């Protein structure tokens, strides 16, 4: 029975991997040129040559649009997911490792950086006029002040940087609107390009990985080997890199397929609503939106819908723990 279960699981994994690989291969094979619509066969049903999967109301081939939609997934959803996890992981581990009191910076540097910011604001016109000279003199001036203050005992005393509270505040800020509405509004203010959409998704979706990473880091920080590493005098960076990340990294990696699935869902929903990517970018969601023009065209739902569900299911399958 156990063996049977394991076989089943491996089989599922293999199937999921096979499907995802074929999506990636399809995306790489698809040409980026826009095909001319076949105006003689608009909204033609599938299984007829030359369009084996049918055409949409504009006369575009569905099979071709599916391939190009896979390309959009590869170039938009996956980079966005990777960036989301990187940002969320970094912020979450910083918040968990230092919490509110751990990140101590000497008063001298606090004052120097405060002066730098104040100088940038106060001398903004000069910065516009002569950027190099003003910024150079600002940097050297503030550096000098910081260095001088650092010579005194008062200046060397640390002030804590409340990084945990800061990141928690940011998370509360972003979570106060449902994701879809936030992205919808920002995308409406200015129609984003593909790169802009990746950035927008990254900046709005990082909260969940950050929360997970913060919890994992909080747990790991208390372990004995981290204590030992700190006692041995390793720097914060080394403790994080050598002793904490190897243990917390799997949390984020396990999250990767789920994040990709989430972002594919978000991107296709936006394209379906006609908001996200520019109209000429093919997407499975945009293909599905064709159903609104010809409600009887079941093939416009079946193929992209099946592709979408299979991809999401495969990604979910991958994120299950290996037995």
């Amino acid at each position: 029975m156990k063996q049977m279960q394991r076989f089943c699981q491996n089989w599922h994994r293999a199937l999921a991997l096979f499907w995802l690989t074929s999506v990636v291969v399809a995306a790489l094979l698809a040409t980026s040129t826009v095909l001319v619509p076949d105006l003689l066969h608009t909204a033609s049903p599938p299984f007829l040559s030359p369009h084996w999967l049918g055409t949409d109301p504009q006369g575009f081939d569905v099979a071709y649009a599916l391939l190009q939609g896979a390309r959009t997934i590869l170039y938009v959803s996956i980079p966005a997911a990777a960036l989301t996890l990187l940002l969320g992981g970094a912020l979450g581990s910083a918040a968990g490792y230092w919490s509110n009191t751990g990140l101590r910076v000497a008063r001298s540097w606090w004052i120097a950086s405060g002066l730098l910011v104040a100088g940038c604001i106060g001398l903004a016109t000069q910065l516009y006029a002569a950027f190099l000279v003003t910024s150079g003199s600002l940097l050297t001036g503030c550096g000098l002040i910081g260095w001088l203050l650092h010579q005194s005992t008062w200046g060397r005393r640390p002030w804590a940087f409340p990084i945990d509270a800061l990141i928690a505040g940011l998370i509360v800020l972003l979570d106060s609107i449902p994701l879809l509405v936030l992205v919808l509004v920002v995308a409406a203010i200015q129609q984003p390009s593909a790169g802009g959409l990746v950035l927008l998704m990254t900046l709005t979706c990082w909260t969940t990985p950050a929360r997970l990473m913060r919890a994992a880091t909080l747990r790991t920080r208390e372990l004995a080997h981290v204590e030992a590493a700190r006692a041995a005098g390793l720097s914060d960076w080394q403790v994080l890199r050598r002793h904490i990340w190897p243990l917390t990294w799997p949390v984020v990696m396990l999250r990767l397929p789920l994040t990709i699935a989430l972002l594919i869902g978000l991107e296709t929903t936006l394209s379906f609503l006609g908001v996200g990517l520019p109209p000429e970018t093919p997407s499975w969601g945009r293909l599905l939106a064709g159903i609104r023009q010809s409600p009887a065209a079941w093939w416009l739902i079946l193929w992209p819908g099946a592709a979408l569900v299979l991809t999401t299911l495969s990604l979910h399958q991958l994120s299950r723990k290996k037995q």
Partner: protein
Amino acid sequence: MKARTAWRYLGRPIVAAWLVVSILFLLTRAVSNNTSFIQATLEADSRLQLAEREQLTQQLLHRSGLDRPLFYVSFHPITGWQWQGIHNQYHAWASRLLHADLGLSYRSQNPVSELLVEALRYTLPLTVLAALLSLGLGLGVATGLHLTSPPRRTAVLTALQALQAAPLFLIATGLLLLFANPDFLDWFPSFGLGTEEETTAWWQLPGRQLYYLALPVFSLVLVSTPPLIIQLDGALQQELQQLYVVTARAKGASQRQVIWRHALRNAFLPTLTLLSELLPNLVAGAVVVEVLFALPGMGRLLAEAAATQDHPVLLGGVVLIVVTRVVAQLLADGAYRLADPRIRL
């Protein structure tokens, strides 16, 4: 300690909500071209001369307060920073918002609050019905799963996980194609609310509305219930292994009694967080469903405002959703306390 908890549960969400709405306001005003919406109406009128048009644009800008500076301070590369006083767009907008005045729509020149109230008349039945149904269905199925045989439970859970993989718009279009298709099963209407027909008597209206809302509500329920069931089922599974359950069984309680009387209350705690997100998420989900089923509700209002860059309407909708979210969170915190007296605020 008291002030801290008040800040954490009341202050922080409100400040966050205010900040989000303010940032979105400043973004909409700063990034977009103010004159574009006036230009479109003026250019339609070809009788106007160029000079007249300029003047008219200025007048219209002045009337809607768009010729003022955007924020308390402004920056210009040559003149530097300048204090603008309280006669700026942000101040005017914020003070009107505090009086619950959301401004006028760019497109139709109607008050935004009127448009929102009108839209809520359609969205509230949709979302509230969907929320109640998913809650009931979630409770029923999750407890029912522990009363049936294990293989059946695994089968249902697998099916639910598969259902979770489909995004809302796919489920909704699928339902539309299956049940509102003249070629297949023409059971339900595919769009509208059926209120435009005058012949229906007043006592027929609720039933008629239910008939028209069936597919939209069902698609929302199909999306929001699986996560609820999966989470509640996992929590129940964990609770049923606790010692107090053994005690309850030893006293002679049936499985049904053990679940409903003893385990469910404890298992429900982690699900409360999910529930507090249910209503705002349903409002967001209503965007997709209302666009697809052509219901004149909040979601469609938002989507249309997004497509036509009608920023006051868009911001008004966001304000409403943010407020719903904050209220739902407060209610969830209160419910936590009711459900588990060990939690102290």
